[in-house]
């Protein structure tokens, strides 16, 4: 593929090719809708560049295999849906403590996994950088950024997509993006330091080899935590629009944010004073952007396709200066894998207008039901 050439491509293939362009040479996963095609495309494309893709016996082994590949210094990734990632949580926590640059793909099912992505089900104080593309071309960019940030910080990075990210098509260009240098992987091992009295140890436990620094688990945990505070200061990514005089500010991320942005643009053209904030990094969350927007807004509305997960962070950002209200809701297709009928510009518009006119206490239009309920 030559530079600038655009190809109409399914999101899952674009993600796999973007990862390979970023230098990913190892992938292990277990099929699960709607993530399966991401695995398929890694399986198809990795061998051609000298890489390996393993269809692991379960998600537990998939993440373990990626762990081993990462320890050798390779760029490696795994992924699943939220369900599969639930199984990997123990390893996620430990890989964070072992400071390995894992990239994780979540193609979330209809339930939405914001809690899992930003809080996790794993143990301890661990944090993952979480990037949420709103469409496929942004997924191509954020996938490559994920590998860069993982190496830059020696910390896992999760790319959060959904059924539409994985299964719709868009014209994209996949060229390697240069995000600048990353530190040398002097910690990576290949067996060559065995027997040299300077053999290496990749461990989450904070101990070193005999005769080498042994900070112990307490100091190790503090070091990781300090690194996470630094990431919070430097890696916030957010897009916003029309905030200057906005009376109603809508906060949304990922695919739904693209719908929200479109509707806000429409309403602005009609003279409505509405604006939006789109967190691109879910962790670190753009609290400052929400705090600022809440200063002048009458209402902060959160549109997400679940009972309300990101709304907790929006409330923390708004700090009580403006009421925060959820205007989304649970909406899946009949299978639960895909996106439900609520993700439609007309429904989004009606709900934004309801709070824009009626304020935080406004009654919202009834949630549309999927074809199974109505059919």
């Amino acid at each position: 593929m030559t530079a600038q050439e655009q190809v109409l491509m399914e999101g899952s293939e674009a993600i796999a090719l973007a990862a390979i362009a970023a230098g990913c040479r190892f992938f292990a996963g277990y099929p699960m809708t709607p993530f399966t095609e991401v695995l398929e495309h890694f399986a198809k494309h990795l061998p051609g560049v000298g890489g390996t893709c393993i269809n692991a016996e379960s998600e537990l082994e998939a993440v373990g295999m990626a762990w081993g590949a990462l320890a050798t210094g390779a760029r490696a990734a795994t992924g699943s849906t939220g369900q599969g990632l639930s199984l990997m949580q123990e390893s996620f926590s430990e890989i964070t403590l072992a400071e390995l640059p894992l990239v994780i793909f979540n193609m979330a099912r209809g339930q939405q996994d914001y809690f899992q992505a930003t809080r996790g089900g794993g143990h301890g104080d661990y944090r993952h950088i979480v990037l949420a593309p709103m469409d496929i071309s942004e997924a191509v960019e954020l996938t490559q950024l994920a590998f860069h940030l993982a190496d830059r910080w020696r910390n896992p990075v999760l790319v959060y997509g959904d059924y539409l990210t994985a299964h719709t098509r868009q014209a994209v260009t996949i060229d390697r993006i240069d995000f600048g240098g990353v530190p040398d992987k002097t910690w990576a091992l290949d067996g060559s330091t065995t027997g040299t009295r300077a053999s290496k140890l990749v461990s989450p436990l904070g101990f070193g080899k005999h005769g080498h620094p042994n900070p112990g688990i307490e100091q190790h945990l503090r070091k990781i935590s300090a690194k996470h505070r630094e990431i919070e200061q430097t890696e916030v990514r957010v897009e916003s629009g029309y905030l200057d005089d906005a009376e109603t500010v809508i906060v949304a991320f990922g695919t739904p944010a693209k719908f929200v942005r479109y509707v806000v643009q429409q309403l602005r053209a009609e003279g409505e004073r509405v604006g939006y904030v789109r967190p691109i990094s879910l962790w670190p969350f753009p609290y400052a952007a929400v705090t600022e927007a809440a200063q002048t807004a009458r209402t902060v509305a959160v549109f997400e396709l679940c009972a309300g997960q990101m709304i907790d962070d929006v409330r923390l950002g708004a700090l009580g200066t403006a009421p925060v209200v959820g205007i989304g809701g649970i909406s899946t297709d009949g299978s639960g894998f895909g996106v439900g009928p609520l993700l439609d510009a007309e429904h989004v518009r009606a709900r934004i207008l309801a709070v824009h006119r009626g304020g935080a206490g406004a009654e919202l239009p009834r949630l549309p039901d999927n074809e199974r309920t109505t059919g």
Partner: protein
Amino acid sequence: MSTSVPLGPVIDTTVAPDAARKVGDLTPDLLLTQEHHMCPGCGEPLVLRSFLEALTELDVAQRSVAVLGIGCYTSFGMTMDVDLIQALHGRAPSVATGVKRMLPDSIVFTLQGDGDMVNEGLQEVIHTAARGENVTCILLNNGVFGETGGHMTATTVIGQRTKNSLEGRDAEYHGYPILIGDLLARLDGAAYVARGSVHNAGAVARTKKMIKRAFEIQRDGGGFTFVEVLTMCPTGWFIPTVDGPEYLHDTLGEVHVMGELKEGGRIKSTEELYAENVKRQHEIESRLAAGGLEEEA
């Protein structure tokens, strides 16, 4: 009711006994220190020595990567001079897989206990064997979770007393032990499966040969290799230290029988191995009676 265990004379181990003399330095090259964190009478350090010596003797040390599970042996991670990855409980075989796929010319091995491998991570070792992954898994099998203080594992034998089988493992209540070596031997991807023991010097020597054989097969790209080693855990068995080897031989050793379960494509049953061992014992005894033993090649 309380039973007191005769302790025997208390020996002060902080000073060298009068008659002690150093006959030579037998520390393996790949050991960073002789300090350790294990109980007196523990069998695990004997396996550590065996595989460290095997790596040196095969001249593959500087392309060797170890992956450790979680158990008492985890502390070897600090003392062995081997590039090493600390894995989660049960998860070492998949980590080893990732390493090997990225570094096909390296010698990759896991070190896991019975709780780690046969309880927590059973499907990991089975699938790694089935894939014919070109790595070596070493199992330290003492039939208990030593680190937590002597609890029943999937390899605890019937009748064996542990903290959660106080009256002895009862098949009806606790189920049967898993003979992991026998299970793995039947998988096509497994090239070599052996079970050693460290209850006496002869067994240690035999075990080291098994580990060496496994590494050789891996070096030559032969596929998945597995060496299980029965080890003493007097602490977890609640017996006097000196009784460890005999207890190992008479309890675990009677069920998890020592020998090569799969070699050159031939699978041997527990009965065959048992018969082999009896024959071997008789041979040794008659050779001893005839004037002594030459070291086996």
